[in-house]
């Protein structure tokens, strides 16, 4: 197992290297430069040239890439042009907020999705199955930002049960109940689509397993229905559900961008959008590399967990 983990980690290195090349190239090749973005109306060629020099952008592209890569290997992600703060500080601070949101959503969609899938499968074509399928299809079809706005209108503006946006109350907040209150709507909006996908998949995986002979044998032996489903069937179905969870984690993380904008959640997705619009090269590059690295590591973790769950998978 240790060897397998090591092998996977080593194979991640070229992936990350490729990501640095791609993100650097994209940011260098898109039209518009940071100096023009910062200067706005006042971007005369003269002013742009001077500011580019101040920002260290007058060097050739290849040289800039290696300087950036070299610094990053020593842990120095550079300074954000627009925020004038170390990139790594900004990214970590924002990543923390994204993890709270995406993590909660991920747990929510995993539990709700699998639960809905199991209930659906055990009552195939029954009323519960139809109701769940209906709700799940709506969940999959409604874009998260639209759902988010509707939630805001209903629960924050009309009913005034929950705060509209942000992560903590401006005054008298900062504790866990305050965080949960702010988290409910964005987490639900973000979880909706993934819940639907997981529910559909869990349902078919469960149906497949429930038709197996050993399930019938277990039932014939008088094992309680609850144990048949939770103990015998779900455990096996999890092997095919698990990889989907890994993929959905990626969707939840990328979908967080929209939800963060609607709910003004101080996360990394919104930061990247702002950084792209202001051509804050180092912040975009550093942010993307950091998020990509986390995603790669998470996928390795899913694969490892998969191994532990199903010994048949070769390590």
């Amino acid at each position, binding site marked *: 197992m240790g060897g397998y983990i090591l092998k996977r980690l080593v194979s991640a290195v070229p992936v990350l290297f490729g990501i640095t090349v791609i993100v650097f190239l994209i940011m260098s090749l898109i039209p518009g430069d940071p100096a023009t973005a910062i200067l706005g109306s006042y*971007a005369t060629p003269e002013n742009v040239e001077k*500011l580019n020099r101040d920002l260290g952008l007058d060097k050739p592209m290849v040289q800039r890439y290696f300087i950036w890569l070299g610094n990053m290997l020593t842990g120095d992600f550079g300074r954000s042009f627009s925020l*004038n703060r170390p990139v790594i500080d900004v990214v970590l601070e924002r990543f923390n907020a994204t993890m709270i949101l995406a993590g909660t959503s991920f747990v929510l969609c995993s539990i709700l999705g699998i639960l809905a899938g199991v209930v659906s499968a055990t009552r195939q074509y029954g009323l519960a199955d139809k109701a769940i399928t209906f709700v799940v299809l709506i969940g999959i079809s409604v874009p998260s930002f639209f759902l988010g706005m509707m939630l805001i209108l209903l629960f924050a503006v009309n009913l005034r049960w*929950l705060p509209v946006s942000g992560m*903590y109350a401006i005054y008298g907040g900062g504790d866990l109940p305050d965080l949960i209150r702010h988290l409910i709507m964005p987490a639900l909006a973000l979880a909706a689509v993934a819940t639907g996908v997981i529910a559909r998949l869990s349902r078919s995986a469960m149906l497949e397993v429930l038709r197996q002979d050993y399930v019938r044998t277990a039932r014939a032996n008088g094992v309680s229905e609850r144990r048949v489903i939770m103990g015998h069937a779900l455990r096996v179905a999890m092997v095919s559900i698990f990889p989907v969870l890994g993929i959905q984690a990626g969707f939840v993380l990328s979908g967080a961008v929209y939800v963060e904008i609607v709910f003004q959640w*101080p996360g990394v997705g919104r930061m990247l959008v702002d950084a792209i619009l202001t051509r804050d090269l180092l912040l975009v590059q550093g942010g993307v590399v950091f998020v990509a690295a986390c995603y790669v590591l998470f996928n390795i973790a899913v694969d490892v967990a998969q191994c532990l769950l199903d010994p048949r998978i070769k390590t």
Partner: protein
Amino acid sequence: MKYMHWTRRGLFLAAAGAVALISGLSERATAQTPPGVLIVGQVAEPKSLDPAAVTAVNDFRILVNVYEGLTRYKSGTLEVEPALATGWDISEDGTEYTFTLRDGISFHDGTPFNAEAVKFNFDRMLDKNHPYHDTGPFPLSFFFGAVEATEVVDDMTVKFTLNAPYAPFLSNLAYPTGLIVSPAAVEAHRMDYGRNPVGTGPFRFAEWRANEAVVIERNDAYWGEAAGTQAVVFRPITDSNTRVAEMLAGGIDLMVEVPPTSLGQFSGEGFSIVEQAGPHVWFLILNAKEGPFADKRVRQAANYAINKEAIVNDVLEGTASVAAGPTPPAFAWAYNEELEPYPYDPEKAMALIAEAGADGAELTFYVTEGGSGMLDPVPMGTAIQADLQAVGFEVKIETYEWNTFLGEVNPGLEGKADMAEMAWMTNDPDTLPYLALRSEAWPEKGGFNSGYYANAKVDELLEAARTATDQDERARLYREMQAVVQEDAPWVFVANWKQNAVTSDRVENFGLEPSFLLHLQGVTKN
């Protein structure tokens, strides 16, 4: 069956738990914002609170409450009045400005405000060898590019020597780039000064919670009238729909830049809408070097053909007024009241086009998706396209993202396009025409005259206005310039934006300024 009981009970418990949780947690969500604390919904997170380092109006809105400059805009106008300076003398030739400073003022950190502090501020920005020049970059330092030297005459007198007469100097000092920072705080925080700002203003900086809020508190030692609120909280809420929802839900007391389509939601009880025309002009640059717009008659025809009333009232829902010429009316002292906007007259446009032989000409029109001061550029561009098609042009729109758009337009339209959208907000009537209408400001010479307009008379008037130190004389020159430019029609003059804001009925004494800055000193909240 057992399993079914379990899920039903489980579901019931879960539902009951959720209801209890939401109702318990929501107790405080409905609580109103505290009295004496004004919560402002901003459009973005500030980049920095170092006035020398920022360029965005969004950041200026916070800065002007924490800092002061040597001069400031008189309330309700764009005219300059004393602030940290009590008065000034200008030498005969207009190159030496000597300021007398206000006595007995301290920065929020307790260090004294004096001539040394003023010198530190300008040297830091302008002198490459200054020990704190590396706390930049200072993108707008060219506002003071004419300053050759800053000298301490005595403790309370400071003298600026300019390399040439430059009349906008006084109003540039009132611009946020000229706000005075505490030298001691810059020395203490260096690169992080922008997050630890210290000024002399009616509010002192209290706290910056990244991506959540900037908090400023009343400065009890302020030399002028004390602020009306105990604290102001600036919350960045980028999405305009979310900002509207926060306002409706009572999460913020004041919001700026209300989308035109949302204004209706605030027309009822509990809110008031504030509007103020500002130094903004939205126009179309016409390519006067080549193609149909090289002919003055066709340029005038475009001005007649476009229904500006409809754009202002229907597309922008009344959040702007029709522009008459290159200078916004907000510069009341320099504005030519006699100018009337080109009326909407398609017949006349068609006659002019026929006369110039430009019927059916094909036009390439650069439109941007968004951008600072650009209002609603895509629907506006589409309306303009329809109006121009109606008088016989073939208009092809090319749409670009803002920074890409600037990269296309600023180097000049030659060989690429016949017209492009553009908007400017400035602090002095000199800035825009000087940078965008002189023949010396063609793109290859480093200016913004992307349509290659040239008129010797306009060049002469603008140069003269820049060096005249007498305000009445400057005003006369600007008025004449506006009349000439309107007749020549290098641009289609479309709209002057009215800045808007909404406050809850708990907020009193709030007003917007023509400078687009947000002075909150006098505001109170119950």
